[in-house]
């Protein structure tokens, strides 16, 4: 769908943004460690896709995460908050969820647990050994 400008988009082709892939994450605002909330498993898949959660952690199969806000998710949230210059609370505060909802590049932020987004620095792999294929 290519358009020369916004006003040239026919109303019939305007996309429904509430159907965006990550819109359900808005319901997770305020969640923190220890809670069990429907939808957290999907958020874990998000964090695994972008390299923040290991492929092997707390899941019985590749696509089967629990809805528990566990330690692995808390670490993922903390690392995400560091990478995006947010307050490192480890909780899904409003600012963090807002950032998560933004459209983004599909390339992982953490590749094979060996890269970070910070100023060319290379940090040792985290203990959970994140791995993302790119």
């Amino acid at each position, binding site marked *: 769908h*290519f*358009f*020369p*400008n916004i006003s040239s988009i026919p109303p019939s082709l305007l*996309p429904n943004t509430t159907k965006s892939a990550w819109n359900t994450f808005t319901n997770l605002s305020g969640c923190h460690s220890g809670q069990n909330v429907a939808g957290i498993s999907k958020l874990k898949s998000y964090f695994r896709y972008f390299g923040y959660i290991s492929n092997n952690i707390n899941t019985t199969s590749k696509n089967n995460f629990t809805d528990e806000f566990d330690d692995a998710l808390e670490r993922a949230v903390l690392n995400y908050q560091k*990478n995006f210059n947010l307050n490192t609370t480890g909780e899904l505060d409003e600012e963090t969820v807002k950032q998560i909802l933004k459209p*983004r590049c599909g*390339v992982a932020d953490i590749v094979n647990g060996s*890269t970070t*987004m910070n100023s060319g620095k290379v940090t040792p792999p985290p203990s959970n050994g994140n791995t993302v294929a790119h």
Partner: protein
Amino acid sequence: YSFFPGRPRWPSRRRDLTYAFDPRNQLSADVKRVFANAFSRWSEWTPLTFTESGNYFTADMKIGFYAGEHGDGEEFDGVLGTLAHAFAPPRGLLHLDSDETWIVGEISGSGTGAEMDLESVAVHEIGHLLGLGHSSVENAIMFPTIASGMRKVELDRDDVEGIQELYGSNPGNNGTTGPSFGEREVSRGC
């Protein structure tokens, strides 16, 4: 800035790179021009040159628009969410989500919150094709997210330092790091 593990980059004997579009997309001249502009953002600061090739199969970098699962195991997710991805050198694949609403001209105006500026995303993905990973610097092209309706096409100092660590500076700039940063073209239309 950051690099992919092992710092992959295009080898020193290959500074004149070619790119081509998937012929199945049948892209217009306007869309192709957007990519030419995006490549020039990087050649301005480096010794690299980029030329469009008519041969998709032999080009160094291959660009295509696809929906959902498209053969590389990294499926797209429809409107918004993941917009595009690209692979580190020397793989040279740049894929964009064909379900997005791509603006190829003026992005300003009141939109629905789903319009994405194609050149902004293209400049970012080309950074990956050249070997850059993501950056925590919010003004950097290599910052992973971009809001809908936003145009961000000028390289930030962080991007330039990263790419010049891989390839050096543009010899046409008399050995300096590159043109002045000057006025940055960053705007938000809605």
